[in-house]
């Protein structure tokens, strides 16, 4: 089974059934709340301030709930009406909703929002559903419109699930081309399960991306940096090659993690995970 992004457009994948299921899976709800809190933390808002925050790919409103708890007013944008209907049923006081496809550019006038978060949605832009919807064009439209609609001096923290390093680089470089400074913060880089990518964006030149959280103190460089001023190479990257994958332990762990995210029942990892089975028993 491959990623849902490869199979169906988001508005069909997040249909009525899926939206309700998504919202009632308590494990999923916990993870999304944790990521939302981390995004809000990464915006570095002065304590006690109540800001107007854009939530891109707001889905069923879990991230909105976190924004509200942190004292902010928010506007959630999502392409799936079914997800928005679930969000609408939630008792949120300080949020509004809007149906829109971020890949066509956000429909807001300039310098309106004090910040932006996005939880587990950005990777959807990388999968073109029709020939017109080229991933890069959609990413650029999204980031340029985000750049315009954020108040100067504000920040964005966008958590997403890249399916390859190339994809993470493509997303970051499109943000840089739109004019943002910033980079990727990778929390728990050494854990297959807990590893999370946050694209942290700012208007400041010389903005230093916040420190990543790590399970173990040692480990490789977790924050990759770029600067909007120095444009990244624009070389076209083809689709990641498909074909046979060696089912290594890491591959299996990543796969299982992916299936968990889709809300499926997956066996816990242990030391046997991904080991070759004996031919005969």
């Amino acid at each position: 089974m491959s990623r849902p992004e490869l199979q169906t457009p988001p508005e069909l994948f997040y249909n009525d059934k899926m939206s309700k299921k998504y919202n009632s899976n308590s494990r999923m709800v916990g993870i999304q709340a944790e990521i939302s809190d981390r995004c809000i933390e990464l915006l570095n808002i002065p304590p006690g301030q109540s800001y107007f925050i854009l939530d891109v790919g707001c889905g069923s409103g879990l991230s909105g709930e976190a924004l509200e708890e942190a004292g902010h007013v928010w506007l959630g944008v999502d392409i799936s009406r079914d997800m928005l209907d679930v969000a609408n049923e939630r008792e949120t006081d300080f949020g509004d909703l809007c149906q829109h496809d971020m890949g066509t550019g956000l429909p807001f006038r300039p310098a309106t929002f004090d910040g932006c978060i996005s939880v587990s949605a950005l990777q959807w832009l990388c999968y073109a559903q029709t020939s017109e919807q080229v991933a890069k064009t959609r990413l650029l439209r999204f980031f340029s419109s985000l750049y315009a609609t954020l108040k100067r001096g504000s920040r964005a923290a966008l958590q997403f699930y890249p399916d390859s390093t190339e994809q993470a680089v493509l997303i970051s470089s499109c943000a840089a081309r739109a004019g943002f400074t910033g980079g990727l913060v990778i929390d728990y880089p050494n854990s297959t399960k807990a590893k999370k990518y946050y694209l942290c964006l700012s208007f400041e030149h010389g903005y230093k991306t916040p420190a990543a959280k790590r399970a173990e103190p040692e480990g490789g460089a977790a924050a990759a940096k770029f600067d909007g001023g120095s444009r990244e190479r624009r070389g076209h990257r083809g689709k990641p090659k498909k074909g046979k994958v060696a089912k290594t332990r890491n591959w299996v762990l990543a796969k299982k993690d992916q299936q968990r995210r889709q809300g499926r029942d997956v066996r816990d990892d242990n030391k046997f995970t991904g080991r070759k089975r004996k031919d005969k028993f």
Partner: protein
Amino acid sequence: MRLITHNMLKSNIKGVESGYPLGIEVVKMEEQELEFNPDFIRNMLAKLEWDAFRAAATALEAGGELPEEVTEEMKGDEEVLRRVHHALMEVHLVEGELVCPETGRKFPVRQGVPNMLLHEDEI
């Protein structure tokens, strides 16, 4: 949809120049009480398109008594801030249409959620 959202929304149909502000056709509106946060309203005053806000408040019959322009004094006037709060945060367009000022294209609002999705030939 609150007026705070309406104040930010524009039509981004291909070829449209500003696409702002969106006209409002009201079918159904609702009022819902919300905690008043004067600091938030003060912050928003700097960012609101005031004329669009007043026009929208009039369309929703939510603010006959809004000042003609934003002044320094009004930031310290709780009475006025509360009126802004009411029109901005407590009045909801539940059913209706948002209308692109340049093309006349209507964006439907259903159950409080505006549908700003573009058709393929509008992108």
